[in-house]
């Protein structure tokens, strides 16, 4: 215990610094009133290039990424490196797709993806499904950020329970007060610390271990039996579909949408999407920390594989710098957790509370409801971690990725074409959801010997003989990818049936040029501010 004192002191000081910033953020770029969802929940929709860059980085690269991706390489070899193709793919997708969402939301005052779906498909059912899917998928994601903090606390031999409760209470308090401005401001500190730690780590640790070739040799030795530092024909399809599916899932998550909608103009987003190499390189190098841990003969604490990065830092760095590194990971958890809680709260307020309980809620009332919901979301996340096995939250996060993908036809395809019928969207969502959950249920977990929900790699041999189409007999594929393909297929078929049966479609409240509008244009006629259209008849 005593030999961790320096680490604990440094990490605590940095935590106090960012907490102070979080409270002060309410005064930063001070709005005339905070009692409006555009201010509290979207930071006034005014963020320029720099802030957006840090905010989206805060969204995409979370503490869990820093902890879990290296743990994956540590445990599974090359398959864990999927994070790199994923991060390459995600930016062109955001560039093309989310700028359209920004434009249409700017015109119509949408705050959440479900707001968009409501206006585009004319289906309040589909909007509700998108909102509920978003909230359910985000909750375990927030809980996972706590898993990141927990891993750090374990490495410092601090009792995680009380430290977690205090950290989250402080986070909840300043998010309540400052809204999206708090994580936006703290993201600067978070990223500066993370860059510092990673740059030092990738120079200093390989130097101490005798060079990169030693690190890769150690990994080769560990995975010798399976040649696991490369892909093989059994896991290459999983690798590709997971990278692609995760990239699609990422920008459907409500918190990524929040980060994008908070920016000032289309140009801000586009500029940002073409300048992310620092983040992506960082992620690739962070992933390789897993191999460094192999070379450094790191032993995880207990059975918690997520502790390998904190333990590696503890072993390799001097005490004071390990403290900085731990603070970086912990703060890296707080930023996305705050954005996610805000995004989930906005969904609840706009698409459940306002839609079903108080259709004429004033902006101030919306902001208040969102603030309270964000508190509830965080309390839920803490309870989640304290009462449930952390492994379970990781499984739930896998499920979260699969289910959020099922909003792809309504949100992402909806940004390009209105062709899919609203009932086709609903039917596709239900079909993709059912198939995805059923597939996940059938996947056993080899490590914990659980029969169900053991991962996201589905063995194709459960359905048919993969060798019959030229694949390896043990070939696996990412559940989310398969489920969303099925979703799209069902949506298309049901659309054709609805068209043939002349079933009434919803009214599209958006115009084609809404999708390319930029800042400075006037809001859509009759849709000024954040008024949503009246509900379309559902039958």
């Amino acid at each position, binding site marked *: 215990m005593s030999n961790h004192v320096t680490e604990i002191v440094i990490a605590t000081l940095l935590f106090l610094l960012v907490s102070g910033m979080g409270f002060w953020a309410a005064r930063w770029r001070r709005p005339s009133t905070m009692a409006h969802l555009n201010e509290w929940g979207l930071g006034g929709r005014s963020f320029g290039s720099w802030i957006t860059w840090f905010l989206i980085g805060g969204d995409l690269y979370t503490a869990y990424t820093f902890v879990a991706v290296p743990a994956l390489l540590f445990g599974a070899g090359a398959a864990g490196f999927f994070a790199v193709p994923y991060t390459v793919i995600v930016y062109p997708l955001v560039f093309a797709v989310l700028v359209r969402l920004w434009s249409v939301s700017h015109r119509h005052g949408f705050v959440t993806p479900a707001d968009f779906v409501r206006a585009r498909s004319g289906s309040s059912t589909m909007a509700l499904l998108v909102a509920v899917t978003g909230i359910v998928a985000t909750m375990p994601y927030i809980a996972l950020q706590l898993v990141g903090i927990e891993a750090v606390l374990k490495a410092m031999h601090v009792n995680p329970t009380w430290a977690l409760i205090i950290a989250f209470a402080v986070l909840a308090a300043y998010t309540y007060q400052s809204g999206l401005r708090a994580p936006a401001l703290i993201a600067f500190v978070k990223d500066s610390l993370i860059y510092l730690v990673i740059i030092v780590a990738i120079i200093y640790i390989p130097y101490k271990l005798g060079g990169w070739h030693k690190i890769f040799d150690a990994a080769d030795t560990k995975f010798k039996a399976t040649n696991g530092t490369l*892909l093989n024909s059994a896991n290459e399809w999983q690798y590709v579909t997971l990278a692609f599916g995760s990239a699609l899932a990422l920008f459907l998550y409500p918190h990524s949408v929040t980060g994008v909608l908070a920016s000032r103009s289309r140009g801000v987003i586009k500029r940002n999407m073409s300048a992310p190499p620092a983040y992506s390189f960082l992620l690739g190098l962070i992933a390789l920390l897993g191999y460094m841990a192999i070379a450094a003969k790191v032993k995880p604490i207990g059975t918690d594989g997520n502790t390998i990065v904190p333990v590696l830092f503890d072993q390799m760095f001097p005490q004071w710098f390990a403290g900085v590194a731990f603070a970086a990971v912990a703060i890296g958890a707080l930023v996305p957790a705050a954005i996610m809680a805000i995004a989930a709260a906005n969904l609840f307020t706009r698409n459940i509370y306002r839609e079903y309980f108080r259709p004429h809620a004033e902006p101030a009332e919306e902001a208040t409801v969102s603030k309270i919901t964000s508190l509830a979301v965080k309390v839920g996340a803490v309870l989640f971690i304290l009462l449930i096995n952390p492994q379970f939250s990781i499984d739930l996060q896998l499920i979260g990725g699969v289910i959020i993908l099922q909003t792809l036809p309504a949100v992402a395809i909806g940004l390009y074409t209105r062709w899919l019928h609203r009932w086709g969207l609903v039917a596709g969502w239900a079909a993709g959801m059912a198939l995805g959950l059923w597939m996940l249920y059938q996947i056993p977990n080899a490590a914990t010997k659980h029969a169900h929900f053991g991962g996201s790699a589905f063995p194709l041999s459960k359905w048919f003989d993969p060798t019959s189409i030229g694949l390896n007999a043990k070939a696996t594929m990412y559940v989310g990818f398969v489920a969303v393909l099925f979703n799209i297929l069902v949506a298309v078929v049901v659309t054709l049936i609805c068209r043939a049966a002349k079933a009434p479609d919803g009214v599209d409240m958006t115009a084609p040029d809404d999708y390319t509008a930029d800042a400075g244009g006037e809001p859509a006629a009759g849709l000024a501010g954040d008024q949503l259209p009246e509900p379309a008849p559902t039958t």
Partner: protein
Amino acid sequence: MAAPPEPRRPATGSSRWHWLLIVPVVVPLLVFLYNSKDPYLFGFPRFYWLQLAFILLGVATTTLVYQLTRKRG
């Protein structure tokens, strides 16, 4: 209220240059390009350095498309 808003100005910003973005989406998914150890670069097997290099491909493409579509929205 239920009438869809009238179109105001012609669509800008949707450009066929956006199709270029398919390149950095597809290339990282072509496993055969990088699933090998040789050649090594700075001690990194090809599997690792080439995938990191794809980041540059992504950046170059998005920057190009940004510049090409800039004036048109």
